[in-house]
């Protein structure tokens, strides 16, 4: 009896309830959707949306770590997704003959994509340590634009003699049997569609595990302390630069992984897909889901990806309706009366942690 109570406390006690809840939601949703998909009772439209939803959820969880927990506004998450997507596609493309198991190839591609995203995260993270607030936001926006612009001008080919790379103009001359991995503004074509919903769901669970482990550990508390009061945190010996960098790089890694999963889900992918609007879209998921609230982020992502599809019956007006719903949601959830009413749900005010 005693032991059973402990397990219950470990799973549903104060402080862990939300975490357990989010894992249960993800796993239950996976089991239901996967069995529906296998029995063929899911429409082709929704089957096609399963993997993209997983990608957006992972990228949004990563961004929430950055914006919600670390308190730094990032407007360039799509840039990291772009890096991940085209790295993943390239890796998968050149491993196509040597690694025939698609799931294994997918995992390898995602891991390499994460690694590359981490490297870029470290490079881009340097200004993150120097700037604050809106200036940081504009730098992440700028990096997102730069990455998109660079990927749009990259040509990468692969044949028996190895890789051929050129910039701005396509100067690759491939031998017979060679394959273009990236072709400038046209992006990647003829990608093997090896992404699966199962891998996506596993990645969401892993992302949640990582984020919760950070949030409820010493580094997580340091990150949140740095967000809430930079000076006080510094005075108790927290290395602000290191903690902010940690959140930023993990967020980048998740976006990279999400991007690889996304890229390997489509036959063709253009670099323009990961533009400023995509960064904003992910930020909207995070803010609507609640800063620092991972369960909320997952729900908001699923709802907002499905919403335009559900609004299809009103065809022309769907994006207009989407915009109105977005504005109304923000106004209603920030209304003082509504806030007071939902006070028990611990809606947090201005968790962005901007210093006055």
């Amino acid at each position, binding site marked *: 009896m005693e032991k059973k109570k402990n397990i219950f406390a470990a799973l549903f006690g104060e402080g862990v309830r939300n975490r357990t809840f989010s894992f249960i939601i993800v796993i239950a949703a996976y089991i239901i959707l996967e069995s529906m998909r296998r029995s063929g009772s899911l429409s082709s439209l929704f089957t096609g949306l399963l993997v993209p939803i997983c990608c957006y959820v992972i990228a949004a969880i990563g961004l929430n770590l950055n914006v919600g927990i670390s308190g730094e506004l990032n407007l360039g998450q799509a840039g990291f997704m772009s890096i991940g997507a085209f790295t993943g596609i390239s890796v998968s493309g050149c491993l196509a003959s040597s690694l025939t198991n698609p799931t294994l190839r997918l995992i390898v591609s995602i891991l390499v994509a994460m690694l590359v995203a981490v490297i870029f995260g470290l490079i881009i993270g340097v200004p993150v340590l120097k700037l604050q607030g809106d200036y940081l936001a504009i730098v992440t926006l700028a990096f997102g634009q730069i990455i998109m*612009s660079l990927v749009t001008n990259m040509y990468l080919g692969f044949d028996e003699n190895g890789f051929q790379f050129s910039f701005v103009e396509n100067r690759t001359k491939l031998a017979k049997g060679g394959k273009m991995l990236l072709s400038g503004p046209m992006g990647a074509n003829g990608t093997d569609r090896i992404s699966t919903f199962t891998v996506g769901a596993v990645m969401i669970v892993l992302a949640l595990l990582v984020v919760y482990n950070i949030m409820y550990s010493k580094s997580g508390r340091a990150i949140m302390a740095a967000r809430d009061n930079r000076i006080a945190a510094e005075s108790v010996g927290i290395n602000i630069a290191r903690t902010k960098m940690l959140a930023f790089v993990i967020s980048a890694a998740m976006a990279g992984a999400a991007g690889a999963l996304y890229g390997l889900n489509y036959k063709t992918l253009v670099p323009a897909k990961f533009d400023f609007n995509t960064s904003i879209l992910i930020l909207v998921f995070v*803010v609507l889901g609640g800063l620092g609230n991972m369960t909320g982020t997952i729900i908001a992502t699923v709802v907002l990806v499905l919403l335009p599809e559900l609004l299809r019956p009103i065809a022309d007006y769907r994006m207009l309706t989407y915009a109105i719903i977005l504005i109304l949601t923000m106004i209603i959830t920030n209304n003082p009366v509504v806030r007071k009413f939902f006070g028990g749900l611990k809606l947090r005010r201005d968790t962005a942690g901007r210093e006055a």
Partner: protein
Amino acid sequence: MGFLSYLISGLGLGSVYAIIALGYTMVYGIAKMLNFAHGDVIMIGAYVSFFALNSFGLSLPVTILLAVTVCTALGIVIEKLAYKPLRQASSLAVLITAIGVSYFLQNGAQLLWSSSTKVFPSVFGNGSITIGSLSVSILTIITIMTCIVVMVALTLFINKTKTGRAMRACSEDKGASTLMGINVNSIISITFAIGSGLAAIASLLLCAAYPSVFPTLGSMPGIKAFTAAVFGGIGSIPGAFLGGLLLGIIEIFAKAYISTQLSDAIVFAVLIVVLLIKPTGLLGAKQNEKV
């Protein structure tokens, strides 16, 4: 085309950015929010001018007046309906609302006027003035002159009038301004009105230079002008002016001397370098940390 002529066309492009950036920077200075819908107000201004010139055959001065009136009214309505209820909310909530407004305007325009590109009529002609070997188009001269006039008028307004003084007070401290008898809400409305009116002027100059009108027309100039505002130090009016001009010059030089395709990347890279050296922009107020 030599160095000087690139410089002048850079100044022309930069003038348009500067006028748009003024809208961003004024709203930021007073309402402390990034108004992402500003670019779409430009788009609405472009459509209004297009229909005024093309369908109703109005003269240029009437068109300008009409576009400015419509955009000013739009700016005030947006502020009252979407941003005012969020005065106490977090800056991120306001940012998302601004994005919602931006989607709304873009999709509304697409529904009303379809997504196909419309060709903007030539308003200032194709004439140019030649001085020695240097040839400058009339449009560029008009654009630069407009920018200077706007800048001088705005500086006088901010520094010499009672409303301008109230605006400066609000940007310093809203609470204290209220105690001094300033109606903060109406000052914010006036700021949005001025910013949106300037957006209408910018839309005409922009469409005269790049004569195509489509629903997402405002996005890229919006992002660039926002960058310009940050470049100069957001919240600072001379900063927006300087940032806009520099951004335009850098963009034209990057296109001319390095690569057309990579010009955007170069512009943003320069921005990052500047912010690394001067973290609050060229003319931005130094942020003092309170301990």
